[in-house]
């Protein structure tokens, strides 16, 4: 007993010839259907090239178009011819011209001999199919499709819409339940002949000839009428991408295909010389006796589809430039923004780098330049510290920095003295952790040796900028993880928030803070604020600082200045 190969060919005739010769040489009869669109000259050449083999014959030709009944007709006439001409055939294997046998033919024959009554055909009900193109699954069986999807897409779509609106439904013939699956099957003589010789076949044919993509449903449905012995899987390895186009195999897939232990793969690039040479010569093939295991190939193609549909989060590049809101991650990793901390603590950056284990930059959006960690003029990815380059596209600057430093958390300082254009972007980025001590910008003013009128003017301006920034952070659109303390509240009990911030940096062992940053000397800061008030300004972002006493001393009187946070 043997297996007969029904081969549907429409291009790359030279490769089809090679494969047909391979099957025939191992005693498998081959019936070839050549698409009528292949011109007479090449067809005659093809037939001549295979004339020396008496177990290769050609069936009557149909003009084939994707998604139409003609493909079923082609396989019907070729299968009928196969069953009639080669009585020794027990299984019939439907293959295409771009299919390539991966395992030795005797091994396939033995595999089928051990399962003489089994039909290998993927056959699942429409409810369970995830792969349909164009959103048509059960409607394939209830609507009519007189227009070609490839050539007259507009008419196709309109006609589907019209039928939906009118509520037209075709009647499915009695006794059948629509099933779908891969169009590459391997059926037993018993089952296949039952399908082809059924007295009701004209009814079924009439029905399926107006179903959409009947080659994925005709045999898959009818096989359920005649056999209970169905392995619902295809022996042909065939992967489809997100548009329903088959993935193509190339020379560099050789090892992958070898290890898959599948019997047949499609679709092979016709110029994949090494694949054809390796799999069609005897020496390259080893009998393994293993069950087909396409898991690894599945994963690779699933990944490819995911890259095409989801992409890499936080990446902006020449072929991925998402609309706002479609980024699937505005940046690629979490980062932390500290506002007011560097003003409040001496050496905050160095301290944070020591305890947090993250990369700590200065004010990246400062007006003079981007203050990178270690005061470098160029940073990861050759990002320049030039303020002009940065301000030309601040969003790209930030997303580039986060992308370039994947695997290492970035922290930087921000405040009302910096360029503010990036505010909205950070506030709406779920990867941003923004911690603000409001009003801390006043500390450098307080410590500066400048004329008070200048200080007052600048204080008013900075307060206005920070207010606007806080409005953004507090708006309904913000998605960042935001923490805001007023300065008065913060200096009262700084240790707890600091611990929380360090915990948030995402390092594995969360250290208990042993070393605390040094709070700057704030004695007289209350008076400084009062002076601002006396000058007619209203400093409100700092919270309530008592005029004469500073709050920390009140709660903890014996502590000497400057305050060290414990």
């Amino acid at each position: 007993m043997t297996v007969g190969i029904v081969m549907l060919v429409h291009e790359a005739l030279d490769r089809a010839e090679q494969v047909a010769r391979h099957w025939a040489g191992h005693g498998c009869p081959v019936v070839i259907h050549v698409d009528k669109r292949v011109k007479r000259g090449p067809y005659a050449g093809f037939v001549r090239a295979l004339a020396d083999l008496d177990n290769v014959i050609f069936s009557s030709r149909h003009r084939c178009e994707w998604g139409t009944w003609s493909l079923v007709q082609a396989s019907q006439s070729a299968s009928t011819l196969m069953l009639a001409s080669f009585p020794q055939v027990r299984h019939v294997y439907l293959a295409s011209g771009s299919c390539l046998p991966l395992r030795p033919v005797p091994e396939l024959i033995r595999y089928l001999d051990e399962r003489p009554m089994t039909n290998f055909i993927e056959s699942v009900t429409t409810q369970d199919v995830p792969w349909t193109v164009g959103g048509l699954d059960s409607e394939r069986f209830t609507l009519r499709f007189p227009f070609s999807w490839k050539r007259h897409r507009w008419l196709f779509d309109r006609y589907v819409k019209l039928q939906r609106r009118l509520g037209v439904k075709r009647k499915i013939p009695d006794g059948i339940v629509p099933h779908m699956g891969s169009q590459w099957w391997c059926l037993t003589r018993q089952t296949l002949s039952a399908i082809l010789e059924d007295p009701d076949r004209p009814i079924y044919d009439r029905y399926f000839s107006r179903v959409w993509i009947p080659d994925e449903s005709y045999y898959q449905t009818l096989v359920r009428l005649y056999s209970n012995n169905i392995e619902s899987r295809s022996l042909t390895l065939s992967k489809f991408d997100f548009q329903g186009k088959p993935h193509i195999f190339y020379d560099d897939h050789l090892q992958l295909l070898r290890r898959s232990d599948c019997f047949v793969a499609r679709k092979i690039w016709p110029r994949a010389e090494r694949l054809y040479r390796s799999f069609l010569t005897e020496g390259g093939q080893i009998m393994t006796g293993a069950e087909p295991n396409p898991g690894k190939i599945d994963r690779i193609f699933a990944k490819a589809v995911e890259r095409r549909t989801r992409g890499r989060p936080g990446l902006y590049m020449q072929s991925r430039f998402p609309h706002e809101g479609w980024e699937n991650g505005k940046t690629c990793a979490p980062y932390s923004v500290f506002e007011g901390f560097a003003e409040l603590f001496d050496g905050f950056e160095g301290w944070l780098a020591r305890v947090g284990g993250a990369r700590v930059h200065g004010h990246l959006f400062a007006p003079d330049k981007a203050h990178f960690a270690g005061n470098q003029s160029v940073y990861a990815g050759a990002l320049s510290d030039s303020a002009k380059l940065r301000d030309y596209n601040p969003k790209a600057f930030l997303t580039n920095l986060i992308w370039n430093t994947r695997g290492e958390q970035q922290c930087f300082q921000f405040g009302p003295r910096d360029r503010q254009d990036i505010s909205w972007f950070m506030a709406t980025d779920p990867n941003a952790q923004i911690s603000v001590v409001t009003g801390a910008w006043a500390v450098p003013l307080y410590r500066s040796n400048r004329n008070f009128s200048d200080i007052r003017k600048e204080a008013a301006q900075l307060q206005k900028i920070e207010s606007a920034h806080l409005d953004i952070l507090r708006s309904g659109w913000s998605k960042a993880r935001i923490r805001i303390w007023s300065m008065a509240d913060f200096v009262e009990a700084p240790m707890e928030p600091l611990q929380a911030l360090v915990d948030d940096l995402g390092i594995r062992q969360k250290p208990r803070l042993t070393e605390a940053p040094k709070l700057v000397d704030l004695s007289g800061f209350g008076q400084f604020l009062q002076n601002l008030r006396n000058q007619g300004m209203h400093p409100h972002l700092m919270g309530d600082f008592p005029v004469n006493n500073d709050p920390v001393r009140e709660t903890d009187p014996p502590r000497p200045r400057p305050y060290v946070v414990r």
Partner: protein
Amino acid sequence: MQSYGLRLRRKRWQLRAFRKRRELTPVVDRTDQIRPGDILAFTTLRNEHVRLPYFLKYYREMGVQHFIVVDNGSDDGGREYLAEQSDVSIWTTEASYKGARFGVDWLNWLQRRHAHNHWSLVVDVDEFFVYPFCDTRPIRALTDWLDSTGIRSFAAMLLDMYPKGPFDQQPYRAGQDPLEIASWFDSGNYTISKNDWMGNLWIQGGPRARTFFADNPKGAPALNKIPLVKWNRDYVYESSTHALLPRGLNRVYDETGGEKASGILLHAKFLDTFRKKSEEEMTRKQHYANSHEYKAYSQGLSNSPDLWCKWSEKFINWRQLEILGLMSKGNWA
């Protein structure tokens, strides 16, 4: 209304290309050798003899079947060298490069004549095309795949390559792989904005923006390119290979978060030949924006001729560029 304007614009460039055809004189026309389905390369050049042997070798090995060249008045023997090559057709002209919109009109004409229904690759002699799997699959595998998925145009951003140290430290010999010398690049300092009118992306950045245009970022050269197109006689390049008409061809990027497949043009411009070239261009004033770029370069060259920094990446292969996010496999696997 807008699309009508663009249509007029396309017709205008076609007409202009048609007029500019008279500036071209054939040196050797072997275009009758071109068979259906051949992959063609188009290039304009001037005095690039030393680069030609490697350029031809690189693209022949990739699977390009015919080269169509416009020579803009070379006097270094490059024209004669090209005329001897059996897979090259060459036209020559003494007319203004700038007047032909930096060669675009000439190539638009030759593409209209010879590239209809062919995959056509437009590259300069210092640009080396890299695409996913280019180390194991010929360019025909890519174009077949693009055909099967109905994609007509393929993006490849220009990636400036530079040596470590001053440009003229290592002399370039004819036939040598220029990437042996200029093997470094900037991996992550590119900025992108969308041109809503043409529908293309505008990409700037890299070492040139970082060193020569830090004070004038807007003036930094455009790096977005669409060099590989299944050509139709109705198509035109709008400006260099940065954008095409009809503008649907410029949609080489995904806007819903996915990644389309894309490649890279490795730009090996910064060799020891560069100083001579920029001096020549300064006097000819034939380049984009009144040789603004070259002006900036020659000033930059005298001040700090080294583009290398400690964050520069050394080129290894396409997979490296893919991991860095400069190009993508898309759904090609």
